[in-house]
């Protein structure tokens, strides 16, 4: 067991999958020599060589497109989009190829590609580096979308993603890259994609979040606990597929639910989760299901982030309102 940041945990996971499967290749902008702009792949080129860990041209569509060919012919590409905002250049490849290979070939081929990308705000980067647009990928049939919030989950989910047969968009909350540490096992382990994590059990209200927002959600949950509100905190971890049964089970118990996420509100993951709540727990609801999300605006410039990202206080306020409803 060793204390690691999320960057170290992902690096550790990449090292494990590169070691256990020689078909795994890792590439993207600055991924090789530099070890990635956030140093996620630091030291891996030295260890596994330039043929397995390498730099790509500044062409996201090319990165994704080449991965399709590699995957269809037996390799296991892990590709990096330097920031999620850059990945839009690769939409054509991701939407028209990556997500459809299995269906189009009637199951003869699959596209076991892991597309890693840092996402979200909170590090005072420019606006197109800071948005939280996971919903774009979650809306595409054929893709799994995973967002971890802890070093332990990041490692276990990434290993599961690489071992799987189908494409996974693996989004990494860069605000949490180094801002939390956790004792994790250095040996391999995996966490199945699609299973939410009940971070804390409670009986008054279910607080559902994921990724970067989990930091504030944890704080809010602690504060609420001190005020006598028993919060059940759930990290969904997998945006798609969504763990409907864990959500349903929890809300049938608590009767109240608040979803918190960083990205814009309209048509966002909050809406999807709350619809699931209605489906699974309608007859048990004590208060209207509610979401606390980002605003329907472009992610702000650094000086505005403080007003965009919800604070634990705001979450506690909403929790209280729902409990007292």
């Amino acid at each position, binding site marked *: 067991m060793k204390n690691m940041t999320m960057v170290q945990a992902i690096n550790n996971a990449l090292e494990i999958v590169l070691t256990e499967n020689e078909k795994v290749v890792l590439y993207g902008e600055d991924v090789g020599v530099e070890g990635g702009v956030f140093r996620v792949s630091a030291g891996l080129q030295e260890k596994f060589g330039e043929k397995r860990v390498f730099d790509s041209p500044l062409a996201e569509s090319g990165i994704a497109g080449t991965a399709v060919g590699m995957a269809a012919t037996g390799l296991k590409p892990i590709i990096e989009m330097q920031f999620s905002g850059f990945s839009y250049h690769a939409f054509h490849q991701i939407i028209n190829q990556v997500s459809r290979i299995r269906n189009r070939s009637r199951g003869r081929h699959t596209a076991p590609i892991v597309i890693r990308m840092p996402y979200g705000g909170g590090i005072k980067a420019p606006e197109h580096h800071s948005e939280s647009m996971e919903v774009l990928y979650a809306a595409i049939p054929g893709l799994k979308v995973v967002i971890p919030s802890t070093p332990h989950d990041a490692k*276990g989910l990434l290993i599961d993603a690489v071992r799987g047969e189908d494409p996974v968009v693996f989004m990494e909350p860069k605000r949490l890259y180094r*801002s939390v540490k*956790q004792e994790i096992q250095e040996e391999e382990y995996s966490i199945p994609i699609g299973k939410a994590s009940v971070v804390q059990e409670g009986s008054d209200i279910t607080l559902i979040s994921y990724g970067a927002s989990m930091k504030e959600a944890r704080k809010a949950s602690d504060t609420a606990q001190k005020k006598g509100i028993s919060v059940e905190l759930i990290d969904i971890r997998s945006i798609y597929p969504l763990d409907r049964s864990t959500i349903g089970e929890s809300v049938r118990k608590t009767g109240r639910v608040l979803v918190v996420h960083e990205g814009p509100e309209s048509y966002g993951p909050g809406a999807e989760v709350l619809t699931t709540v209605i489906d699974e727990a309608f007859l*048990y609801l004590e208060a209207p299901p509610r979401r606390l999300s980002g605003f329907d605006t472009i992610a702000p410039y650094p000086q505005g982030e403080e007003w965009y990202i919800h604070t634990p*206080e705001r979450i506690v306020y909403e929790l209280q309102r729902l409990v007292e409803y």
Partner: protein
Amino acid sequence: MKYVFNFPDIGEGITEGVIVEWKVKVGSTVKTGDPLVEMETDKVVTDIPSPRDGTITKTFGKEGETIDVDSPLVEIEIEAGPGESPSDEEESFGVVGTSAPAGKDDILPAGKDGVRKQPEANQSQESPSQEKVKATPVARNYAKQLGVSVNKVTGTGPNGRVTKSDILEYHNASRQSTAGLKSGTAPASGAQASTERTRVVQLSSTRKTIAKNMLNSTQSAAHISLFDETEISQLVQLRERYKHIFSEKNIHLTYLPFFLKALVHALSDYPVLNSEMDMENNRLIYKEYYNIGIAVDTDEGLVVPVIRDVDTKDISQIAMEIEEKAQKARERKLSLADFKDGTFTVTSYGSIGGLWGNAIINYPQAGILGIGRIHQQPVVKNAEVTVGTVLPVSLTIDHRIVDGGISSRFMNDFLAYVSSPVDMFIR
């Protein structure tokens, strides 16, 4: 550094307050002690001072909203204290943006998923009372309006769902079983909204407190009242004589200080009227001090500040204190301490009008004295009809504590003191 200031408990027992007026807004610079916000709690309106120097970065809640004690009130940007700075190595990562390194408090508990687990002890079971029944939100709302805890109702609808008729049945059954003993459940018609011909107004904190206290008193104490009057020419003369002397000292001398003094004498003659019933423990608690509440009529409603240790104070002190407390009450500047620890109460409704009144005891005190309008009327003295100045007095007592006999004797005693004030110094 951000400092979040929570709404403090500014007196004993308060749990919430209403924001009356913000004195600061986001961006305001504040010094320690500067007023942040005017809050209304049970009977008090007071400014909440800032605990720190700094700049306001957030305010929580709008004017008119109720907030709980210990919930955030404002967030203040304050000078950071000496803290740990991250190591250079940790800070240098990342070519875009600034990634905050993990501090001491940012260690997450170790995860368990995917790792071989130690067998765990069974999780504690939820108590059955916390389990939810199946009910549509409509049914839950209906139950709420009836004051029924829906999760206690047994459902007979599809799939065991609790229906409206289940709730109504449960409600009627529980109402019959408590047969009028309990009030306080919500009306069956539910909350009404304003219409063209009605206007619905939310209660102020003061009104809510009065309503709660009055209801509690009438439900908890056994009220009986008696009425009597006496001729007070001697007191009138006494007051006339001192009124001018006092007015030179800027003191407005009313009859009330004399009544308080007379009351305290009567209470010391009949100490049981200065006691409090503790039924749970089958005992009476006698008070060896005389704190007399005086009912003050204000725009917001009735408030009852307390004049402490009336037995140790002279008429001028009492007069000044009454004036000060009444003034503060009208300006709503009384603090919670001004209301506490009363042992008996006087209400002078006669100063507005009315001879007799059936006052409600300031629970858990033993009684309340009502002072009616002082007026001239024919009185019979030495078999002759003359013009007398008459004071009507109403006394309401808690029959659990005292019986009619003692009450009447106490009334006689009080009337004797006011009709012959000199007795207060002699008897």
